[in-house]
């Protein structure tokens, strides 16, 4: 045989061997994986007394010095395939090929720039891709990690870490999927601790701390970007830049250093509600009802179940067809209660989990065709308009601590009945987006708040400037005194956060001129009292007070000039730390009060713009005035980019006209963002229609005719105003007419019944007559 022939045979033999062995190897691996995923049939949850492993797959000895936090990937992964889980609903948004029915987007809220920007890695209508807006995975994790269960953007690949040198993944580590966030049965599981650790950039430590596995100290956010977890403690700093460290709870370890995890196979409702709570704003906790399913004893995970892939059943119609998971059909309302699939076929076994079969007596069929079950059964009833709610993720609920974490903004409204993707009408939650953007052709590209702030300069900071003055003055106030600014109907006082709080001043008029004062009890006294510097018997204590005020005002950061006080043509100011009194210049002859002295000019303590702005916004939730928006748009236009800049708020798009004035118009980008709601499901007796058709069909029903005004950070009258019917794609005129027809409907029914009885009786008689004659009975008689 030639050399070439031997080579060919050898190569062929090698290829055959590889071919023969490869399937065997992969089959064995698949068999092992399958074994982990296959249920042995026992309905018990095994005790999880397992060795902890760190992110390097090294065993953790809790008593060692500076042990690393445990890693779910290597601690849980050996039995529960981590890669499979990574594709789950809660972790796979960035890589998902299917978006599913729209859900709640992440809402970036920044009050200073008036931003309420919906973000989602899933391509849902109205939401922006964080990457397109300029958010890296690092930004996203720090913004929303508080309510992320780890994984996904919080656990980027090595490539992504290298691609974002500005991030601090090397210091913080990555927040792996936090299995305990859902499956921990222990009451030690603490979502608040998770949020705190995320904000401290202790990402790799967060799961250990939140799960109560160990106590974590230190803050990665204070460490230099060059720090590495293998560098160990910072020997030079034990107070500020303290390296994160874990002190494990030793009582939960056995002698073999195995840790006892107290776990649930099905997460308890508390775990779900940590991120998925929704409650009416300002409602008292004791008055809030739970979902009727919860009240009946069901857990969230009874319906929203999943396999190892964590592709959680969301329970909406059409999900089964979308995902190919036919089991999902059983967990829609119609599947569970009626045994119907999406097409209305009786292909599903009804009554799972004891679901009762609804009677729906007297309910016309069109309701089933046009409405989802949740219209009548879910969310608050549309009585007296829409309900403003707060959600965990939008309003940062469920994070407890010394600081107040929850926020009133953004404004989330429900139930807004709207058609979902041309299908049925369903109740939705709604948010009006608000953000600054630049136009790229016809596309609207949102700007990051920090970019807007940088371009806006001082325009967005009138509250800060007023607050700085008041905070400075508060240094020299007596215990019962509070420095205040009185302007219009409001009194502004400094708060503990270094901002200002506005309160209404009883009886004050809107055009009350601004006055810097001191509040003592209920009384507000002027900061500069009636005082005659030229008087022979002047009160020396007043001038001493002036000295204190001027010294305090001298500490105001970024002040436009030297502080001064003008009283009756006399100017007081500090010279070399001493109070100097001189004749006030002619321009201040009529002035009285504190001011700034800058380059020979006298400036008021609070500029007209600042006073006008804070007074206009006082007592409202709005954080921007039209004047501010116009100024910021002008500032953005000067930033160099040759493009149009716009601001979106309250359902309108604002831009500067050629005349320099602010103009608004409707635009698709300003449309509200909606996502269907399904909970809370109300008891049957509280469903719409329980009291009859007029629950919805009446001349002025809230269901159809409640008005929804656009809300946003901008204080303006230019907002969208829509009726509930318009969201359903229905004509208001017809619904009003149709609703009014229900006034005469009882009479109509009576007439129809009488007619039917008369006609039926006569037909019956005619039939009898015919039968009698055919039989010859009538002739005989």
């Amino acid at each position, binding site marked *: 045989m030639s050399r070439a022939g031997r080579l060919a045979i050898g190569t062929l033999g090698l290829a055959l061997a590889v071919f023969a062995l490869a399937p065997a190897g992969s089959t064995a691996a698949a068999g092992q994986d399958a074994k982990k995923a296959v249920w042995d049939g026992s309905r018990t949850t095994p005790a999880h007394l397992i060795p902890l492993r760190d992110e390097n797959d090294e065993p953790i000895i809790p008593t060692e010095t500076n042990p690393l936090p445990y890693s779910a990937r290597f601690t849980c992964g050996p039995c529960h395939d981590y890669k499979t889980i990574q594709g789950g609903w809660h972790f796979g948004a960035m890589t998902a090929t299917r978006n599913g029915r729209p859900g709640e987007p992440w809402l970036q809220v920044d009050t200073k720039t008036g931003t309420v920007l919906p973000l989602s890695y899933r391509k849902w209508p109205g939401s922006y891709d964080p990457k397109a807006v300029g958010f890296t995975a690092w930004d996203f994790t720090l913004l929303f990690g508080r309510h992320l269960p780890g994984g996904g953007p919080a656990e980027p690949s090595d490539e992504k870490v290298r691609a974002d040198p500005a991030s601090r993944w090397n210091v913080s580590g990555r927040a792996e999927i936090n299995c305990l966030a859902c499956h921990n049965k222990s009451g030690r599981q603490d979502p608040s601790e998770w949020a705190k650790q995320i904000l401290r950039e202790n990402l790799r430590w967060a799961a250990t701390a939140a799960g109560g596995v160990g106590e974590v100290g230190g803050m990665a956010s204070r460490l230099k970007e060059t720090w590495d977890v293998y560098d160990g403690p910072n020997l030079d700093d034990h107070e500020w830049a303290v390296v994160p460290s874990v002190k494990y709870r030793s009582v939960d370890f056995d002698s073999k250093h195995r840790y006892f995890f107290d776990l649930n196979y099905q997460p308890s409702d508390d775990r779900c509600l940590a991120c998925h709570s929704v409650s009416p704003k300002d409602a008292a906790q004791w008055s809030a009802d739970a979902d009727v399913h919860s009240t009946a004893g069901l857990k969230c995970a009874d319906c929203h179940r999943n396999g190892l892939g964590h592709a959680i059943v969301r329970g909406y119609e059409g999900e089964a067809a979308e995902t190919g998971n036919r089991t999902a059909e059983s967990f829609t309302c119609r599947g569970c209660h009626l045994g119907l699939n999406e097409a209305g076929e009786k292909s599903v076994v009804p009554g799972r989990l004891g679901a009762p079969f609804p009677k729906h007596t007297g309910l016309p069929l069109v309701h089933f065709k046009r409405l989802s079950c949740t219209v009548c059964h879910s969310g608050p009833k549309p009585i007296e308009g829409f309900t403003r709610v707060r959600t965990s993720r939008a309003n940062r609920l469920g994070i407890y601590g010394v600081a107040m974490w929850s926020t009133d903004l953004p404004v989330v409204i429900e139930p807004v009945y709207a058609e979902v993707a041309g299908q049925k009408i369903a109740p939705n939650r709604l948010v009006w987006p608000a953000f600054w953007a630049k136009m790229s052709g016809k596309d609207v590209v949102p700007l990051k708040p920090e970019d807007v702030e940088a371009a806006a300069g001082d325009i967005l900071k009138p509250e800060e400037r007023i607050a700085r003055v008041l905070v400075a003055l508060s240094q020299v106030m007596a215990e019962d005194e509070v420095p205040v600014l009185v302007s219009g109907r409001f009194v502004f006082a400094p708060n503990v956060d270094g901002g200002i709080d506005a309160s209404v001043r009883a009886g004050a008029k809107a055009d009350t001129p601004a006055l810097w004062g001191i509040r003592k009890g209920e009384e507000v006294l002027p900061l500069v009292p009636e005082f005659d510097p030229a008087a022979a018997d002047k009160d020396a204590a007043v001038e001493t007070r002036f000295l204190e005020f001027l010294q305090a005002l001298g500490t105001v950061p970024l002040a436009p000039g030297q502080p001064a006080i003008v009283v009756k043509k006399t100017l007081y100011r500090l010279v070399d730390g001493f109070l100097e009194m001189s004749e006030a210049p002619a321009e201040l002859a009529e002035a009285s009060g504190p001011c700034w002295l800058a380059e020979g000019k006298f400036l008021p303590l609070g500029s007209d713009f600042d006073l006008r702005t804070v007074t206009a916004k006082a007592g409202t939730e709005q954080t921007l005035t039209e004047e501010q928006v116009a100024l910021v748009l002008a500032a953005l236009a000067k930033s160099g980019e040759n493009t149009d800049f716009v601001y979106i708020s309250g359902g309108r798009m604002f831009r500067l006209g050629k005349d320099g004035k602010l103009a608004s118009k409707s635009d698709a980008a300003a449309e509200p963002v909606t996502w269907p709601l399904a909970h809370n499901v109300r008891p049957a007796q509280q469903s719409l229609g329980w009291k009859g058709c007029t629950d919805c069909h009446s001349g002025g029903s809230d269901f159809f005719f409640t008005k929804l005004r656009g809300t946003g950070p901008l204080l303006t009258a230019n907002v969208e105003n829509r009726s509930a019917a318009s969201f359903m794609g229905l004509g208001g005129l017809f619904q009003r007419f149709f609703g009014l027809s229900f006034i005469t409907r009882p009479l109509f029914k009576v007439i129809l019944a009488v007619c039917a009885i008369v*006609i039926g009786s006569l037909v019956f008689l005619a039939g009898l007559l015919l039968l009698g004659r055919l*039989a010859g009975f009538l002739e005989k008689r």
Partner: protein
Amino acid sequence: MLFTIVALLSVVGVVAGLTFHRFWTTREEARSTIIYVEIFKKYLAWLALRTIQSARKASPKAWWDYVKALPSWRLPDLEKWLFIGFYGSFAYLAASGFFFAIFVPRGLYGFPLVGHVMAGGLFAACLAVIVIFKGRNFISVPKPVNLSLALLDPRKMGITAARVKFAAFWLFVLAGFLLALTALLPMLPLLRTAGQRFMFEFHRYSALVSAVAAAVYVDLELFESGRPC
């Protein structure tokens, strides 16, 4: 879909039956042969010719003249308005109901639905009055029958145009009763979803029966009395 097929087949059947009846009773060539195929060919030729003739004659003015010539206009006022209400409501009910049922997947909705409901009330009221005051004119007096195999022979059943017209009238009244009933019951808190669905379908088929009965009655009433078409 099933309803659409049944409705179309019914229309075809009624038109074929009525036209064949006219052909059979008015044309001499119908009896010129006993071969079915020949009869059928002659029928088709006649039908095509009449269709073309009718189409040529048809115009809005011709229709308006025809409507004006109807005897209903010469009835006493009360009776006249009763029949106007009755015919008008039935015409709207049939037009709106069948159009939406056959051509609009969503079915009847919006203002046409409101009109349908209102016309339904008017129709039921008019029908009730007509049955009370005119029903007696449609009671035939058949002879008592004797039990024999002759009962099964159509030629000996005594089927005449007049009797078919009476039967069509009572069938129409029966369908009207069912229409009123199937409209009323779903509005009452009595029926569950399955019952509602049954009533919905029953309403449609009752409407189809009433339309067929009306067509037969009108054809026999107008054409048998020798009125121009």
